[in-house]
């Protein structure tokens, strides 16, 4: 730091105004400049491809040939998209950290000093998070199918790339994108990394387990159907799986409602509370 003071340029030179695309760009710079982001997505990809490899390389040919027709498609899709089960947990953690990391480090005050209306920062974070998680989800499941179809075909299964495959790939991307935004909302409400991660994983991972335990002891009709309305059950069905007799749009709707509730709660609290 030199003691000589450099001349400052004239006030209000050609510097620009706040615009939403600029705020998205800023959030993208923030997002990609943290190591945790790169690691998180790398883990989603590695776990996804690893899980697919494990299944398709170890499944015996005798099992494949004995399968009924409709179970074959399910097996290919299940093997190719199985990584999404782990991937949803990883992107949920990332979604929480994207905001809780700003609160724990004090960065949020810099963010809000630059964008005092706050909401655009939050929406821009969601856009960046959604797009990145969507792309990673698509790449992971695309790689999964690219691995599963030839390997399973070589083992005598009649597997091919169909429109169903395309929908499963897009659905996996859509779900990962939305579940990360769902977690962003939870992280914004709770502000704390530990609390946010616990709550997000509680909903995505623990809730289905708890309900299945309860259902194994009781025989209440509405409890039996409750799991169908969970974000993770509907979400994994988007990646080519099944969720009771739900149509794909109904699964999308379930995931969207969970995401919207969490995201809107985050937006309201973000605007009201002191930073």
């Amino acid at each position, binding site marked *: 730091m030199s003691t000589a003071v450099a001349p400052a340029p004239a006030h209000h030179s050609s510097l620009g*105004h706040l615009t939403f695309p*600029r705020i998205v760009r800023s959030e993208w710079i923030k997002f990609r400049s943290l190591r945790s982001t790169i690691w998180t997505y790398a883990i989603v990809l590695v776990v996804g491809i690893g899980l697919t490899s494990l299944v398709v390389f170890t499944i015996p040919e005798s099992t494949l040939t004995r399968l009924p027709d409709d179970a074959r498609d399910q097996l290919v899709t299940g093997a190719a998209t199985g990584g999404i089960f782990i991937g949803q947990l990883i992107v949920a953690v990332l979604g929480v950290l994207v905001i809780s990391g700003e609160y724990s480090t004090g960065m949020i005050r810099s963010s809000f000093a630059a964008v005092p209306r706050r909401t655009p920062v939050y929406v821009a974070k969601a856009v960046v998070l959604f797009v990145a998680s969507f792309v990673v989800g698509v790449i992971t499941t695309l790689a999964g199918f690219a691995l599963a179809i030839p390997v399973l075909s070589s083992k005598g299964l009649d597997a091919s790339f169909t429109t169903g495959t395309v929908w499963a790939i897009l659905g996996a991307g859509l779900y990962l994108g939305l579940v990360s935004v769902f977690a962003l909302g939870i992280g914004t409400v709770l502000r704390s990394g530990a609390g946010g991660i616990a709550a997000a994983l509680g909903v995505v991972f623990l809730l289905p387990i708890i309900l299945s335990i309860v259902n194994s002891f009781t025989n209440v009709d509405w409890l039996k159907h409750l799991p169908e309305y969970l974000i993770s059950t509907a979400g994994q069905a988007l990646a080519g799986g099944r969720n009771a007799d739900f149509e794909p749009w109904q699964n999308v709707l379930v995931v969207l409602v969970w995401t919207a509730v969490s995201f809107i709660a985050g937006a309201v609290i973000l605007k009201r509370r002191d930073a």
Partner: protein
Amino acid sequence: MIELTRLTKTYGDKTAVNDISATIQPGKVTGFLGPNGAGKSTTMRMIMGLDRPTHGTAIVNGKRYVEHKSPLTEVGALLDAKAVHTGRTAHNHLLAMAATHGIPKSRVHEVIGLTGLEAVAGKRVGGFSLGMGQRLGIAAAMLGDPATLILDEPVNGLDPEGVLWVRQFARHLASEGRTVFLSSHLMSEMAQTADHIIVLGRGRILADAPVQAILDGVTQSSVRVRSPQIDALARAIQGADVSITGLESELVEVSGLSAAQIGEAAAQFGIVLHELSPINASLEQAYLALTQDEVEYRTEVSR
């Protein structure tokens, strides 16, 4: 220009900022002085729209901060050192801040140079010293070349060279016609940097005046007089506004009269003087006198 009108912030039943009104003028360095916990940072956060006032308003350059279309070119703020994600490099932090307003990369490099951060710009902020964090905060505040600067404890953690730099920098910015509002709990720092001082204690404004006026107004100057005929002198100068405090057998401290007045009185009565020294009140004393009853967390020696 910053205009505070009846600004109040309460947390539950605790009042952090209590009905303060003040105008911070452009072209001057205005010091915001007060003991820790006086409400300085809360006030600054309310100006920046980070904390919501319970009552009252804070107007910056004619509007509430949140209403500006281009906030970073209106106000640059150093609110606390390291309001930065620790996992990001200084360079990326500044790039992200700049991107919100479409501020070009060249300006990012300019502020890095301006604050002497070239050597560490590529390092992650988590490893920064407090001083480096302050420089980064100042760099971020300067990104938009703002008309108003709000700096909360800017010299905190800086080495002597850095302190000198901030002082000159603040004065330079004010000389360009900008509004410079900086807080400190160190009176000596203010005495050397500010033109105008607002003293805050327990959320209230105790004084809002030019530095010299604070000095003159709060603590009376006194004169130390040493004389072998001290009793005769005391009789010669006594009066309603004059107070004489004995320090030693031949030494007193007189307040209410100037050294010239005492010297003339002594000459008139033929009194021998061995010492006649005016004692100027320091800003430090003025500050202590002002905030004596307003310190929230005073160290009590005897309970």
